[in-house]
């Protein structure tokens, strides 16, 4: 799978995202707690752009009056109908069998390694002192 350099790591603040076009696809890259996740920027339900989704926690309640928050910031809550997806797997929370957002592997590389190539988005300026988000599509 071709690897594309899509952003400097410092470009996307924690909790933020960046939309990039790779091979005619809108891909959204999220930064959560030091990790980066890349997903197709379309909700599988009705096509809403996922870069406008809220990044939320998983809220569960094992019994009345008891609430648990986990995976803080790792769940996407779609901007339209509120469907929730796991950023790591793209899986839908309420209907994991049928619905999934396509995800793409992400790696972080430093500029020095990248300078050795070969990578697809050669036009992206690479400096050896920075680190970069690489998406495989």
């Amino acid at each position, binding site marked *: 799978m071709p690897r594309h350099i899509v952003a400097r790591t410092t470009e996307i603040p924690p909790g933020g995202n960046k939309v990039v076009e790779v091979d*005619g*696809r*809108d891909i959204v890259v999220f930064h959560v707690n030091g990790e980066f996740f890349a997903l*197709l920027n*379309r*909700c*599988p*339900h*009705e*096509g*809403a*752009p996922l870069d*406008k*989704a*809220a990044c939320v926690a998983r809220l569960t309640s094992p019994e009345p009056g008891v609430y648990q928050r986990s995976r803080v910031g790792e769940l996407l809550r779609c*901007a*339209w*109908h*509120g469907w929730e997806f796991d950023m790591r797997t793209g899986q839908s929370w309420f209907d994991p069998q*049928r*619905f*999934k*957002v*396509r995800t793409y592997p992400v790696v972080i590389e430093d500029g020095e390694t990248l300078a050795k190539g070969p990578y697809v988005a050669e036009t992206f300026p690479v400096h050896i002192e920075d680190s970069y988000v690489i998406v495989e599509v």
Partner: protein
Amino acid sequence: MSDVIDRPSTGQEAAAKSRLRIIDCDIHPSLHARSDLNPHLSKRWQEHMKTYGDHLRTPYIGTTPYPRSSPLIARRDAWPPTGGPPGSDLAFMRKQHLDPLDVEFGILQVLDLFIFSQQNLEFGAAIQRAVNEWQLAHWCSREPRLKASILVGQDDTEAAVAEIERCAKLGQYVQINVSPRANEPLGRRRYWPIYQRAEELGLPLGIHVGGYGGHAPTGSGWPSYYCEEHQSNAHSMAATLTSLVIEGVPERFPRLKIVFIEGGFGWIASTMWRMDQHFERFRSEVPHLKRRPSEYVREHFWFTTQPIDEPDEARHLRSLIEWVGVDRLLYSSDYPHWDFDDPRFAFKTPLSESERKMIFNGNARALYKL
């Protein structure tokens, strides 16, 4: 995974565009601020709005009793980059909604200012008039694709009829809108002067879900959750349909056309079957009805499609459509609200070309004489 949209968008959107132009029967424009209405309000009512504001029949003035799932009930991507609330910027509405979805006509439904829920009926009438003027001045005159509705509060029936007269003379409005949550069920005779005038003028009567009357939104009282309250959009509309039919409104006004907006359509078939069953058993109680209730529904009522039901199996949605009748359905998006239905993806069941044409364009074109 056949339902998954995971392909690039461009080709698909282009194909949708060439296939069909859309008439969207539910678009919500918003004021930037209340002061937008000042040019359309007398000094007396401007002062009143500033000094006293809203007096509603529900608690929690300034918000809704059931806070919605997203700010201002809106899609999170619908906030205009220029500022202001979703639905307040025509240029952004064109760019995000009217142009890419190839909307040929959009019917405006104003919900701002608790417009139907004002306890002070004179103030209510003043802001209804102001909003009716504002729709033309701010939207329709600048964007000919957008069509306005005459908003009237039916609990002051006389004022409502006067406002209908004033607006109808302008020849710009395509519909008369009343609230589904008035003081009494909508079929009651006190509201008939409005229906009579609508029939005479040949303007459909539009009834958009929601608003807050003095009654709990469900028959069993006040719900605890938004998730629960949102269900009432369907069953309060079923109660409204039943009231209109059984009280004899379509029997008394045989040319009246009534549009139910944002109630969806999954509940209609069972409501009709049940009304027919009861009518067969108790027809001597309601001898003013000459025909089976479902016949009135199938001739007098239209239903906008959003929020569309999403049964697990696509064929069940197909059945719901057939039970109501393709000729009764009008596509609506509800833009810019969170439960927006995208015309390209919302109907997750196959429709023939002619069915698509009827639901997305032809039915509304004929009904609203566009």
